């Protein structure tokens, strides 16, 4: 599977390099819960220990949430957000290939809805199942399921 990085114009130059656009290694995925599904772009984040989604999306699709297990997810710089554990099915559809499996997720509640992000595809439940190559100069990534991938039938 090959995906082009998604490209975003930014209204101001980066103070680091003057760039006015950012490239993000995002891939299209379908998240499936008991009440429905959503199609979103997920950011491949090798620095994230888990898959992270906002509570709004999790509740919309009916993700299975465990309200007994509460903790805080910490980001760079030590900022933290309250989180609960959940499970959803995730599907990657790319041309004629479909990969679907059940993943554990960290469901976070944002203090400020304006800071809401979509989906981080991190280590637990996602990245260990793929061999991923980031081709920075070409702004594309290549990924293929490896022997650890938990294959299951395509969802309805």
């Amino acid at each position, binding site marked *: 599977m*090959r995906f*082009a*990085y*998604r*490209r*975003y*114009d*930014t*209204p*101001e*130059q*980066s*103070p*680091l390099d003057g760039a*006015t*656009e*950012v490239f*993000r290694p*995002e891939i*299209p995925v379908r998240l499936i819960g008991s009440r429905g599904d*959503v*199609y*979103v*772009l997920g*950011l491949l*984040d090798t*620095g*994230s*220990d*888990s898959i*992270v989604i906002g509570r*709004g*999306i999790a509740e*919309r699709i009916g993700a299975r949430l465990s309200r007994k297990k509460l903790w805080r*997810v*910490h*980001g*760079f*710089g030590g900022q933290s957000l309250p989180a609960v554990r959940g499970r959803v099915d995730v599907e990657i559809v790319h041309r004629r290939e479909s990969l679907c499996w059940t993943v554990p997720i*960290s469901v976070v509640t944002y203090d400020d*809805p*304006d800071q*809401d*992000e*979509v989906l*981080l595809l*991190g280590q637990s439940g996602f990245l260990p199942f793929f061999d991923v*190559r980031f*081709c920075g100069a*070409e*702004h*594309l990534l*290549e990924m293929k399921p490896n022997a650890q991938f938990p294959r299951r039938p395509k969802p309805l």
Partner: protein
Amino acid sequence: MPAKMKPAPKVPKKFSGQWIAWNHALTKIVGSGLTFDAALEAAERAGESKPFLTKAPKGPARFAGGTR
């Protein structure tokens, strides 16, 4: 070196900080809004039943990932 592939369309800066909805082929933006729901509804009004939702970076901010 990987074979060339067509670059993704660029998201214009007018969408900075907004939720955006792509058509299912990821070739054009079919809706946007300040919330997930608003972008989704805009896409559905535009006739896209399976839009891909995402959020454009806001202002000069750069995402610094990594969570524990």
